[in-house]
């Protein structure tokens, strides 16, 4: 039963090998985001201020680098476009004609592509540790918490992206919804501005959402901070994954009734 989804993940992983340059460019985009943050914050902190959100320029750049690289692990965002195109073009029928669950197929392909990206990040991390020394390595206790948090966070996000792609059953183009969701995820995960700079009430509210574990929390755990928040974050995420899995099943049931095969 599980073998077919593992096979899909493996194929998605191997398919990435055919386009090695693409993964490098994806990592380059994380580098660009970090670079933009460095330019912005070095302009801001060049005056009388030396710190922002409790971080100096070096800590801010390290935060942005880790957060941006970790965000590239999510490959479900790109796959949602392909899945939506399958619905619009009529190729979605392949999921109906085979004994597979579309949501699990989506998760399997996203996981396979994400695993390839994770391998590249590991290589990059090893190179960074060789060049920069042990200082570039993550805090071991923080890493032990960050890995399951990231895995659950990415699953929650993949389910959210799956539901976004299902909107193709009802709308000709999912681009606006997908773009808005991506912007919200980037903002609420702390990829564009560290959550430490937000007002306390906003941080307290975000602790109940699945977004900080996508970038902000793992970036802090990497530096050995936020260990006390990790257990609660893990429990919150597990609840979100269950809720989103149920919601995606309901959404698929409700929206797939609109499917009319080719030219739908």
């Amino acid at each position, binding site marked *: 039963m599980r073998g077919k989804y593992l096979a899909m993940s493996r194929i998605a992983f191997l398919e990435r090998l055919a*386009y090695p*340059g*693409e*993964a*490098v*460019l*994806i990592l*380059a*985009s*994380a580098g*660009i*985001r970090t670079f*933009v943050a460095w*330019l*912005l914050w*070095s*302009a*801001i902190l060049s*005056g*009388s*201020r030396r710190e*922002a*959100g409790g971080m100096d320029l070096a800590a801010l750049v390290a935060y942005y680098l880790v957060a941006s690289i970790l965000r590239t692990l999510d490959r479900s965002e*790109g796959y949602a476009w392909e899945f939506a195109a399958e619905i619009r073009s009529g190729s979605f029928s392949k999921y109906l004609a085979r004994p597979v669950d579309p949501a699990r197929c989506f998760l399997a392909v996203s996981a396979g592509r994400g695993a390839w990206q994770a391998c590249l990040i590991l290589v990059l991390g090893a190179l960074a540790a060789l060049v920069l020394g042990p200082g570039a390595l993550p805090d071991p206790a923080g890493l032990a918490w960050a890995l399951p948090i990231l895995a659950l966070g990415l699953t929650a996000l993949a389910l959210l992206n799956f539901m976004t792609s299902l909107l193709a059953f*009802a*709308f*000709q*183009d999912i*681009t*606006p*919804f997908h*773009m*808005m969701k991506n*912007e*919200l995820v980037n*903002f609420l995960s702390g990829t*564009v*501005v560290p959550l430490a*700079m*937000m*007002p306390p009430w906003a941080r307290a509210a975000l602790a109940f959402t699945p977004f900080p574990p996508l970038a902000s929390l793992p970036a802090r755990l990497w530096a050995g901070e936020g260990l006390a928040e990790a257990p609660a974050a893990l429990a919150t995420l597990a609840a979100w994954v269950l809720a989103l899995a149920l919601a995606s099943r309901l959404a698929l049931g409700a929206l797939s009734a609109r499917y009319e095969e080719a030219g739908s």
Partner: protein
Amino acid sequence: MRRNLRVIATMLKLRLTRYTADPASFWSGFLVDSAVFGLQAAIFLVIYREADSINGWDRWRTLFFVGTFMLLDGIWMSLFFFGVIGIPDAIRTGRLELYLAKPADPLACLSFEKADPGSALVVLPALALLAASARAAGLRAGPAEIGAYLLALGLMLVLMYDLMVLARTLAFWLGRTGGLQEAEGALVEFGFRLPGKALRGPWKILFRAILPYGLIASFPAEACFGEAGPLTWLAAIGTAAAFTLLTRLAWKAGLRRYAGSGS
């Protein structure tokens, strides 16, 4: 040229007709873009909790810069954005052949076939943000500043079109351009996440001439604030002209390489 314009006008009309049958898609572009830039304004408000100014730009001038990007975004989303992002797919699947057979410029047809009139409404909240931030910043723009602003906007629209097409023309050589588009997305973000005032030294040359994403919203804002001198204007015009030429040459070279389906 006249024939191309006629074909583009017909495509816009067809697109608008199509939207009357799908009103949800018509409004979604407007609602989502307004939310995205509202979010960007919120990001700068969070940043200004920790900052007094960005090289002399206070929060209101920075919000004017966000409003400028929003205005440009509303225009290009309504005209060519959705068409241009489909170029790699047209090349990869062989759909480009259909456009080569049409009695008009294939690039123009591809670019404007998916015009999104609903996105044009984004111009309204953008103008509101521009007016509110200009008022809060105490900006007194006369006809000369407004004229300079409009001229700079037009120039940056041309430049943005060139940059978008150039990045996607690489699909003729690379096949798959997902990673490239992600990197381009990060550079476009650069255009509205980083006010041009934050750029100094070699970075200024890099992001205002070589990868001119830093010019897109900053230059019109600088023109309106009276901060753009003759040299800045000359550099912006030169950059737009150079990228227009480069894009055209790259497109023609790509077409020579194109071998139909599965290219």
